[in-house]
């Protein structure tokens, strides 16, 4: 009889094949291995712990249902992350319909504001320890709107091209470019402000 110990030594590809045949213990091992990463991606996008837990849980259930579609073109982790991102994007779109937008957010969304920001000439992250840098980046990211944070995450952390981001966010490439530009400029200012507070 297989034990969980047997599965922990198996590679992802083997576990996926076993899961595709209905082996839930193999799938449980995949969940254990990648749950933090999937949760982290959901949390970075929605910035709400409870929602991120629910969304990552839903992503795993969807992954089980769609395992037959996974062909191995990418790693399982990458495929799983894409499933999670799509769920989070759907969630954010639904939330946007109900969310009242502040004037600031509307200005941010429609652009033009980034042109008023002065260029940050000093590297605001120079000399920082990695852990400190990551914390500052996380603090700055939390201050962006959902749309700007999402485009930054998809480009900088998921390495997606403009075209792919546009497809997933259901907007034009031009919108992706201007949102990314605004997000980067805002991040530069926020990181510079955090450095000044030292």
């Amino acid at each position: 009889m297989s034990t969980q110990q047997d599965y922990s030594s198996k590679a992802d590809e083997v576990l996926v094949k076993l899961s595709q045949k209905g082996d839930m213990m193999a799938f449980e091992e995949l969940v254990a291995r990648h749950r933090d990463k999937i949760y982290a991606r959901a949390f970075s996008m929605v910035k709400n712990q409870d929602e991120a837990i629910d969304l990552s849980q839903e992503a795993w259930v969807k992954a089980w249902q769609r395992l037959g579609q996974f062909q191995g073109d990418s790693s399982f982790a990458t495929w799983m992350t894409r499933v999670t991102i799509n769920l989070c994007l759907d969630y954010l779109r639904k939330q946007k319909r109900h969310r009242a937008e502040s004037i600031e957010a509307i200005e941010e969304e429609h652009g033009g504001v980034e042109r008023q920001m002065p260029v940050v000439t000093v590297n605001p992250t120079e000399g920082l320890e990695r852990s400190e840098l990551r914390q500052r980046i996380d603090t700055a990211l939390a201050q962006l709107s959902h749309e700007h944070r999402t485009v930054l995450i998809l480009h900088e952390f998921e390495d997606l091209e403009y075209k792919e981001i546009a497809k997933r966010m259901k907007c034009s490439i031009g919108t992706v470019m201007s949102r990314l530009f605004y997000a980067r400029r805002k991040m530069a200012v926020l990181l510079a402000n955090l450095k000044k507070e030292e």
Partner: protein
Amino acid sequence: MNLNQQLKLQAFLDNELSSREAKEVAQWMEQDAEARQLFTELSHTRAALHQNELEVKLPESREFFWSKIERDIRLQSQQPVSTGFSPDAILAWLYRHLVPASAVALVAIFAIFLATKPAPVKTVAMETMSYGEVETLNEEMGSISFRSESERMTVIYLYNRADDSEAGVSNDGLIQ
């Protein structure tokens, strides 16, 4: 520098330009200090973000998190499979087939109604001077008929042909 130029700088940074466009931007930056400054800022931000995403851990135990996933998977696999005879399935079939069929039938009925509806009489004069042909067995008898649509009445006037010339009625029955 306008927004288009700024976005081109960014696209150059992200390797999203064609080689020709990239060359143009590189040449432009050599001559434009403002462009170089903005490019530097964008580069710093990009480098800072690269592989510096904060790592967070799922705040639930392995067992608890898995138990919820397993429960949902089992619940979804236990959903009743539709045999086609459940009330919901029947209603769905009816809605899917009868609604469009009803719409087509209504259009057809309306079209038939329009095609068979008698043409309305537009003026009183036309209404009263609708001459129909009435066949009579007696060759000495002539007839004039008119129909009133509003009154739904047809009047046939019979006359002695011998009196035609006096009445000013031609052989074909038209008043002259």
